[in-house]
């Protein structure tokens, strides 16, 4: 069936092969490789029951379509969630069920072709796997899961985005063991730099704990935070310091990157990266994995450490939860008079819709932000930033993310008239900053702890008020 649609569309203007760069575009015998990979996946994993159930009952009603931020803008039938998922379901029906086999042999049906594999390689990366459509499907068909499964099979057939592959390879098999190729000495430098910054701005002398054994918290953030988000990191550090937990946490030098692109396209990578994190926490004998501000990193750790390492093996906590605890136990104080701008909050799909973090950041923000506005919709039904599912890490998808996938988000932000958009996620922040530039939105994007950093009072150091006065003085001077 899917082939029929393809043929119908043969006259339609051809679009670029894929939005993104495939690492090895010249793979041969794609159909055969895809089927082999599919067979191996079916054999060793649990997806069969799900595929059987989806194949037997897929309603294809079109109900969920309106909820997809990609289709809303593109209006391309190929961006309809059930259309995309059906490409994979059709291959399953045809090649892995008795009915499909019979039909093909009696009715002279179709078989998987290289062109159809190309079509899947394109289409499975035109979805941000945000799972918003799942909320609107009466049957609960999970297109995020199917998209991801399609990508997984493609990657096992040797077809995967170059940007993701290169990063994961460095993280799992390279020297530096992280996705940004940040060598350990550079990490040490960064931590020293952060300590100096904090000494100057917060008025406290401190040294970042590296490789300290037996601490309560092993801290892992997206490695990009070390390179590009010093305020997020200093916000994290300020909370730990102000709460009196400075000697209860550590960073590990062997593995400090919580990024897990496996969540976007491969069970194999997902599990290996999780095991790396757990291994590092074990090496340091850390009590709890404390995950920095990052949607997909938090979700992958929280959801998959229990799955892959065993239930109760190692507790996982997101830094947002930790900060909220500190506020509610009155272990830190945030000055409510510092942040006077209008602030809105973007829910990262991975922790809001696919996770457990909706109210916590709002409780934090409401505790010190004077003018907080919500986007419509927000929380679990929030729109994806348009860069989810790994797309934001593929620079070549920029135009599509700006014009198509992120358009709805940009309008949503504009409508709030907020001056600050808070997004506690490395991926979302990158995409939103690009959106703000591209659509010329009158606001700034920052992490949750960037804002916390502005308002936090540092016991034994400078209060938020003091710092604000100093900054004002410096500005007039």
């Amino acid at each position, binding site marked *: 069936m899917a082939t029929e649609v393809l043929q119908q569309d043969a006259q339609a203007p051809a679009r670029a092969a894929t939005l993104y760069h495939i690492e090895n575009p010249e793979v041969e015998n794609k159909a055969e490789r895809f089927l082999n990979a599919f067979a191996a996946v079916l054999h060793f994993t649990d997806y069969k029951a799900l595929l059987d159930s989806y194949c037997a009952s897929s309603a294809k009603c*079109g109900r969920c379509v309106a909820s997809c931020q990609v289709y809303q803008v593109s209006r391309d039938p190929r961006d309809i969630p059930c259309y995309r998922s059906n490409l994979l379901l059709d291959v399953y029906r045809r090649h892995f069920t008795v009915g499909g086999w019979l039909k093909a042999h009696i009715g002279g049906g179709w078989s998987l072709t290289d062109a159809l594999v190309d079509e899947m390689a394109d289409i499975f990366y035109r979805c941000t796997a945000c799972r918003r459509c799942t909320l609107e499907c009466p049957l609960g068909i999970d297109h995020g899961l199917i998209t991801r499964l399609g990508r997984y099979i493609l990657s096992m057939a040797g077809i995967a985005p170059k940007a993701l592959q290169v990063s994961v390879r460095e993280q799992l098999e390279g020297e530096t063991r992280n996705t940004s190729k940040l060598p350990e000495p550079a990490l040490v430098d960064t931590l020293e730099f952060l300590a100096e910054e904090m000494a100057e701005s917060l008025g406290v002398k401190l040294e970042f704990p590296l490789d300290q054994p037996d601490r309560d918290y092993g801290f892992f953030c997206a490695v990009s935070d070390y390179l590009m988000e010093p305020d997020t990191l200093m916000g994290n550090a300020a909370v730990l310091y102000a709460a009196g937990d400075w000697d209860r946490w550590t960073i590990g030098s062997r593995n400090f990157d919580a990024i897990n692109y496996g969540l976007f396209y491969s*069970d194999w990578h997902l599990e290996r990266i999780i095991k790396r994190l757990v291994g590092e926490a074990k090496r340091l004998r850390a009590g709890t994995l404390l995950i920095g501000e990052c949607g997909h990193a938090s979700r992958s750790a929280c959801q998959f450490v229990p799955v892959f390492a065993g239930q109760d093996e190692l507790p996982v906590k997101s830094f947002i939860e930790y900060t909220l605890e500190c506020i509610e136990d009155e272990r830190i104080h945030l000055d409510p008079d510092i942040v006077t701008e209008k602030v809105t909050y973007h829910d990262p799909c991975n922790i809001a819709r696919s996770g457990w973090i909706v109210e916590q950041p709002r409780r934090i923000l409401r505790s010190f932000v004077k003018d907080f506005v919500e986007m419509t919709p927000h929380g679990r039904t929030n729109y994806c930033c348009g860069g989810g599912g790994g797309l934001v890490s593929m620079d070549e998808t920029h135009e599509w993310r700006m014009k198509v996938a992120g358009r709805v988000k940009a309008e949503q932000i504009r409508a709030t008239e907020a001056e600050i958009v808070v997004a506690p996620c490395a991926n979302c922040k990158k995409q939103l900053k690009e959106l703000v530039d591209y659509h010329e939105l009158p606001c700034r994007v920052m992490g949750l702890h960037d804002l916390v950093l502005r308002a936090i009072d540092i016991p034994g150091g400078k209060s938020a008020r003091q710092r604000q006065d100093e900054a004002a003085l410096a500005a007039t001077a």
Partner: protein
Amino acid sequence: MEHWLELARGPLFAFTFLVMGLGLARHVLLQVHGLVTRKGQRLRQAPWRRIASSTLSWAVPVGHLDRSTLVMTTASFLFHIGAVVVPVFLAAHVALWSGFLGVSLPALGEGAADLLTALTIVCVLVLVAYRLMTPRARALTRASDYGVLGLVLVPFLSGFLAAHPTLNPLPWSWMMLLHILSAELLLLAIPFTKLAHVVLFPFDRLSEVHWQLRPGAGDRVAAALYGEEAHV
């Protein structure tokens, strides 16, 4: 004619009902078996409360109404009520059930039955129109989707006409035979078409369970395809 009607109502019905029952039981057993043998312990880690509440939210989908899907959702919701209530609780069917299964069910009043049947027919027509007229639905719809709607429509329509001699263009017994045979065709089709969602929908909703991936599977897939020393 009486003879044919008896045959259709009796042994043929028993046969189709049995095929449907077995076909649906197979679906359920395969699902349960797949989940229990494959997922095992991990079943306990799934967010069951969230699954239950999202499933329940669709029982009466008022929380899911918005402008772009209003007509389709309403038609679909009302259709499902009619499609369950009429076949089971219509007076003539209740008599059939008590003969077959020995259970006595309360019967719908005549007026209510008429209304509900008519409503169901209208809803099917609305759903057909929706598929024809909305670009997004048209892009998804295949011939089999219309086929299924047709399969559902005929027994309702013929049943309604058989019960209303003034509207019925055919002799009563012909219409009745059409009604019974088309209903039996529908029963037969249930396990083999997307109508299987009558039993599979709770399993469709288990995606959160399927996110509980199988430990070690990734390594085994990679080893099977690229050998033990597989690289990223």
